[in-house]
């Protein structure tokens, strides 16, 4: 069963973080990623670029029309996401609670609807 983990953040919070706290946070996150890659439960971990790099793409008269910005006007936006493939909901919750950031901010956990769910 596949699961998506997401963490959110905002510009203010990240800018207020001291440089060595970042280094430490990244190291802890790397350790988390390595741990679950090794168990064969982490399919991928992806960090998103700054919101300033987000674009909205529409098709206008058959041609791409690109504008700035995330779609939703919120302060918080998705920072990173992880794709898991593990035993079930309980295990996914365990892994989510092992995320280094889970001490400060909640980790959002979504089951992925895919077609090999052995859901009995």
């Amino acid at each position: 069963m596949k699961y998506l983990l997401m963490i959110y953040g905002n510009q203010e919070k990240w800018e207020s973080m001291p440089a060595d706290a970042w280094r430490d946070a990244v190291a802890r996150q790397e350790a988390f990623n390595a741990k679950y890659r090794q168990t064969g439960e982490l399919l991928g971990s992806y960090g998103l670029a700054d919101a300033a790099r987000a674009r909205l793409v529409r098709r206008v008269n058959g041609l791409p029309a690109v504008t700035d910005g995330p779609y939703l006007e919120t302060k918080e936006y998705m920072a990173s996401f992880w794709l898991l493939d593990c035993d079930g909901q309980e295990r996914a919750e365990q892994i989510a609670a092992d995320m280094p950031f889970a001490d400060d901010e909640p980790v959002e956990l979504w089951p992925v609807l895919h077609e090999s769910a052995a859901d009995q």
Partner: protein
Amino acid sequence: MTGAPDIGELLRELAPEVLGALVRRYGRFGACEDAVQEAMLAALTSWPASGVPDSPKGWLLTVASRRLIDDVRSEHARRRREQEDAAATPVEQPWEPGAEHDDSLTLLFLCCHPALSGPSQIALTLRAVGGLTTAQIAAAFLVPEATMGQRISRAKEAIRASGARFEMPGPAERPARLGIVLHVLYLIFNEGYTATAGAGLTTPELSGEAIRLTRWLHRLLPRDAEVTGLLALMLLTDARWAARTGPDGSLIPLGEQDRSRWDQAKITEGVALVSAVLPAGQVGPYQVQAAIAAVHDEAESVGTTDWPQILGLYELLEQLAPGPMVSLNRAVAVAMVAGPAAGLGLLGELESDRRLAGHHRLHATRAHLLEMSGDLPGAVTSYREAARRTTSFPERRYLTGRAARLAE
């Protein structure tokens, strides 16, 4: 799995015997497993041109042993400690025949060791006993090959760390260990059965593979009633495979399936197996589930199904293996025998079960019974609620469609 009895099939039949013999002689399960995989890959590349050798098993044993020797030697060279592992250095000597069955079975028990997580047991069983490659297993579970590789090496590491030995579990431990083995095989079957195959030549069909392995286990343990029951259950379920999805991949419930598309050969075989084993008296959950499937498979329609018998079987199953899903199914049988109100009454009692609270199956069952009772608005609400909560995409489509149809 392509048509004619090909080299791949032959190799997969031989895989557990070769690996079992190797592990019995040398220990080192992890290294032996790698060596057998390499020997099988070598056979896949050389046999099509050179022809299958007179003794394919002997060929594989020789090649795998050589790989193992090479591995051990290079390990020694690296460590410059040649004496320490001398006892484990493989020596070429004749292989005694006759131990294959025990070895293969021991191997299956080892792959389903309780120290491993469920996904690891499945992955290791498919590779070491099923003879599939890591790439094939990864494709079947829709995960990257590297992830599946990690899962398998992690599983081997867990076996090593647990100190598990290559031997059959003792009589006291054996029923519980066999229970895990059967559960793993059933999970493999269900994974294949619920998946809408991402067909491709390299993607093995998992339910077929689970049936092959269970058939093989049944040959090794012909007198075990639950092994027979599980094989029957798989065949009787798989028989409906072609009828359970529409051309667009949508789910067709049992009541609406075109029963002429059910596989009669599988039904006949499954019914024969379960009929032979039930009267013997060692009744277990797989046999009872197989008996339920047999009653469905032998009926010409939902209306002519022997529901009182199904209800009796669910009552028996609830005693043997109580669980919320069994109770839900019993509620459906009660509704078919005594009317929807009786079934809904039973559902009301189940709602307090925390394992079921918010589960999509509870909502889907209520929707179904409300529809039967003529309460269409109530059924629509429950179908929608069930659709929101399922984690299976085809099921969500089915439930949403059902709600939409009733709402019209």
